[in-house]
């Protein structure tokens, strides 16, 4: 799967460029890589899929693209709930309630012997 690597600093610029091309925000996928998180932002550019890939630490805060694509707000809330990702201006409470398990989609930590 082809993707464009982005950083916290370039994510917004890339998202704005895609909006300029009238690309549609499809969804973002969060993956726990074991030592950090990965966010892949998927866009539909006239039926062609464009992926922006961002790696960030568990405690790092990344920018929100919901200011550019309002539809991204829901998935950013979901990722905050399920993975414990920290996103600027985004709070959880979308799919999980207060007494739900915390960050249920994180991978179990491997024991170091």
């Amino acid at each position, binding site marked *: *799967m082809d993707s464009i690597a982005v950083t916290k600093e370039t994510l917004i610029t890339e998202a704005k460029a895609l909006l300029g091309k*009238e690309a549609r925000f*499809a*969804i973002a996928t969060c993956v726990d890589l074991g030592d950090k998180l990965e966010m892949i932002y998927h866009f539909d550019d006239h*039926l062609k899929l464009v992926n922006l890939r961002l790696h960030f630490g568990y405690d790092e805060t990344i920018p929100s693209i919901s200011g550019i694509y309002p*539809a991204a707000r*829901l998935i950013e809330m979901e990722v905050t709930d399920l993975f414990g990702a920290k996103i600027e201006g985004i709070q959880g409470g979308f*799919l999980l309630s207060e007494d739900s398990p915390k960050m249920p989609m994180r991978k179990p930590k491997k024991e170091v012997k």
Partner: protein
Amino acid sequence: MHDEVVDRSSSITFGPQHPVFPEPIQFKLKVVDERVVGATPVLGYVHRGIEKAFELNDYKVNPALSAKICGICSSPHTTAYCRGVEAVLGIDIPPRAKYLRLILNELNRLHSHVLWFGLLGDAVGFESYFMQTWNYREKIMDMLERMSGHRVYYAFNAVGGVRRDLSPALAKEVEGLMGKLEEDFSSIEDVVKDYSVKKRTQKVGVLTTKEAKVTGAVGPTLRASDVAADLRMTGYDAYADVKFSPITATSCDTYGRAVVRWKELSQSIDLIRQALSKLPAGEISVKVPPVVKPGECVSRVEAPRGELFYYVKGNGTKNLERCKVRTPTFANVWPAVAMLSKGCEIADVAVIVLSIDPCISCTER
């Protein structure tokens, strides 16, 4: 006094339990008198953790799980999942299996759209029509049961192909059903052209072309805003071999969404007929390895409600590392908020939300 000085708005909650919503979703509405000026969606009532369950099962068992994400469009879910895993595995399924997937997916679209017309009738106060359309739907569901063995969760697709073949006799019955449905659907045309239905749907829930693109609308909601985007145009499975062009509407309102779905009924019948006439002979599945090699892929198919998105990642074991599902309703929630926030009447809220054909169990997974 001016509005800027005194806030005359008040808040009311719409849902999660409401006669028009088959499933629980809440909209917190900000209203001024009878006019809606803001809406906030509240979800989370039926979250089941299915994405996590995908990681715990053997990947070959997962089609049964993906079918259970949605009872109405279980065929596109299994198609999207299987196509994603097949792409990671690097296998190509037999041509006959691709055609059979097309036929089942289009039958699924037919019953889903007919179901929606019934719900529209119910929402605009046309209850006898609700019963009538669901009677047509029964015929399609009976055929789906005969093809797959099940009425709702078809379990027809498997990684590597499909589980059941279509006998020549049953293919003839499917062909015969298409003729009967064409007759039945003439009554849907009557309703689409009905004065009362037009009064309740025209210029209601307007979503301009620009708004549809920015808010990420998909499916009939997007196409009714005059955007010719349909993933079947990409030619996945057997769609490359059949004549197809997307159906759009220019009115950008609830009525346009009804017209798009009504025309897609005829389109699906045509696609099934084309597929039956070209159905190739041969195997219906190929063997697949016991583990999924490391790799990732995005699989997108056009479900009845719009783009269905699966991200699949393998890690060299029989379990998947990650499986992300984005259903069409998830994408259409924000467009619905945009439509509601424009100053619609409270009485139109149900019709507007219904116009995106919401499926909440799908959305929350």
